[in-house]
């Protein structure tokens, strides 16, 4: 029995791995395109950030007091060029991105500052455009600049800078034990989503082709008239599909790793990343692999059942797309959801694997949660295998005509 199972599985694997077109479209292209897309994303986002940072803010002001002009001049990144725009002119210039910030002081600003006890507080009006990145950045810059002016002024009034300090606060990080450190938090929340989607996407195309496609092309029927138990035909296909899913997932993940020098700023929570940060203890790695294999079993068997019900490759695609969406939704829910793993969620198959993976990567792996997700995965996989087994005995399924 095992011999026949392996015979079918080996043939299926040979079918995939000796087909240049399939190898390129199922393993190489995903890896390359993922590496390129994520690298480009990282590079573009980095560029945009760089560009904003190095941009010289074009400031337009009215009645800017000399003291403040002095402070502005000391900041190399701000250029107070124009000093004669009216408010309406400035609004237009902001909208068109010609200037980044407009600031208007009371005519007798200096006087009011000196004569502060009269209670007549001077007014500063600032304007920026929420549509322009430079302008948004300028808003932060000018506010910070004016804040520092406030400090100087207060210090002058009180006579001693120490008076306005009020207190000194020291906040520190607790020391997290090595085994609870986990990997970079950004990666920890991203990896379960990626792994889950890569497994499904990797198994989908080839699964549809090897089951619905073989039915459609009449090559499945050729096997049905040989004295091999039909359950072993579908079993062998599911087995080989699991291998394909794992390899495809790994190659897609390689794509992510290749892109890391450029994409670390979007994945990593600290913005910088070293591969050593992905290191896990062997125990954690074991738990992680268990969750991953659980996903492989469920996805592959679901894809197999849906491809069996379909009578053509096209139909199978239509059945499997909704399942793919569910996989993506559960992945995003896990990524953006709070890490609160309340009781019920622990028992939802697929989702509990994702939570478990996330926890393991964050250094909070729990054997209980891993066991629960392993058991639910096995449960779902067995139910699917059982359905597949009973479907393959149905003549309408295996031999539609």
């Amino acid at each position: 029995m095992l011999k026949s199972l392996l015979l079918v599985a080996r043939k299926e694997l040979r079918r995939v791995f000796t087909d240049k077109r399939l190898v390129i479209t199922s393993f190489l292209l995903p890896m390359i395109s993922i590496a390129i897309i994520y690298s480009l994303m990282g590079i573009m986002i980095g560029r945009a950030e760089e560009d904003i940072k190095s941009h010289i803010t074009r400031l337009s002001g009215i009645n800017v007091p000399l003291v403040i002009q002095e402070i502005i001049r000391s900041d190399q990144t701000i250029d107070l060029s124009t000093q004669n725009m009216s408010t309406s002119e400035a609004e237009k210039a902001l909208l068109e991105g010609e200037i980044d910030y407009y600031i208007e002081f009371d005519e007798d600003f200096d006087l009011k500052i000196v004569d502060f006890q009269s209670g007549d507080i001077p007014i500063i009006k600032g304007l920026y455009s929420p549509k322009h990145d430079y302008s948004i950045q300028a808003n932060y810059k000018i506010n910070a600049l004016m804040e520092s002016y406030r400090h100087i002024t207060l210090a002058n009034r009180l006579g001693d800078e120490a008076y306005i300090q009020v207190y000194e606060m020291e906040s520190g990080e607790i020391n997290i034990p090595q085994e609870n450190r986990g990997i970079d938090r950004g990666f920890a929340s991203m990896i379960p989503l990626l792994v889950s989607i890569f497994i499904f996407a990797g198994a989908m195309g080839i699964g549809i082709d090897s089951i619905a496609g073989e039915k459609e092309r009449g090559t499945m029927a050729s096997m049905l008239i040989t004295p091999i138990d039909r359950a072993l035909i579908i079993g062998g296909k599911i087995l080989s599909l699991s291998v394909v899913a794992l390899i495809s997932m790994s190659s897609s993940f390689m794509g992510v790793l290749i892109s890391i020098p450029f994409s670390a700023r979007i994945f990593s929570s600290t913005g910088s990343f070293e591969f050593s940060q992905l290191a896990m203890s062997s125990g954690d790695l074991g738990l992680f692999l268990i969750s991953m294999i659980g996903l492989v079993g469920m996805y592959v068997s679901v894809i197999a059942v849906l491809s069996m019900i379909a009578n053509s490759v096209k139909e199978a695609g239509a059945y499997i797309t909704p399942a793919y969406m569910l996989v993506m939704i559960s992945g995003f829910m896990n990524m953006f959801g709070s890490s609160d793993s309340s009781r019920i969620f622990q028992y939802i198959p697929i989702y509990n694997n994702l939570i478990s993976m996330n926890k393991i990567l964050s250094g909070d792996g729990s054997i209980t949660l891993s066991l629960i997700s392993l058991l639910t995965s096995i449960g779902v996989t067995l139910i699917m295998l059982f359905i597949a087994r009973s479907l393959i005995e149905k003549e309408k399924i295996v031999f539609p005509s």
Partner: protein
Amino acid sequence: MIEVKGLRKVFQLSRKQMKVNNTEEKYKVAVDGIDFIVYDNEIFGLLGPNGAGKTTTLRCMSTLIVPSGGTISVNGHDCVKDPLEVRSQLAFLTSELKLDTHFTPDYTTRFFGKLHNMDNNKIETRMEYLFDYFGVTPFRYTKIGDLSTGMKQKLSIVVSLIHDPGVIIFDEPTNGLDIITAKAVTDYLLELKAQGKTIILSTHMMHVAEKLCDRIGIIMDGKIKAIGTLDEILYMVKEKNLEDAFFKLYHQGNRGELDA
């Protein structure tokens, strides 16, 4: 020996099939209780027009589909209760069963040999013999997708017969073949008979049935109208040749329908 007793096959029609067949009926009786026996080492032909139920009958015999009623036994093994044993004793050749065009004849034949639980030595000798006989040898490492149609059909025969079965079921053996390949196939059927095999074929062509078959069953509209050797049928129907006998039975059937 093959015994078919009261074989019935009813298909439930999908909505699409109902539309295609232009019918309101939900069920189609494709085979309506037929009986026949195929003796060892004879060529038995099912002769009938398109849609008579030939393919359905042969598919039931080869365990590809399950009868709705009646029984079939192949060398004493029931097709429903013991399908694996039946499959290992017979070959089913039909143009609907295809081979994966990606593999080579060599790999495909070995693979099917292993599915039939043959050991490597046995596969090797049998493969060499069949490849030589059908002229596949020069193409054994050519992708099936790159073979000519005739060569593909010959390879299908090779693959189906790799396990040297005692019973060979052939659905419309010469249909769609060019004259040369058709001749090669009919010659091979006679050769198989000479080797002691039992052969069941279906055809809608009088001359194929006339030339090849030891006994003929004429099937129309899911029922067997006449069965026997050519002479027995001609005697029974009181006609001089098979074609006349066939149309006489055909018109009788249609009149019967009109009367009913």
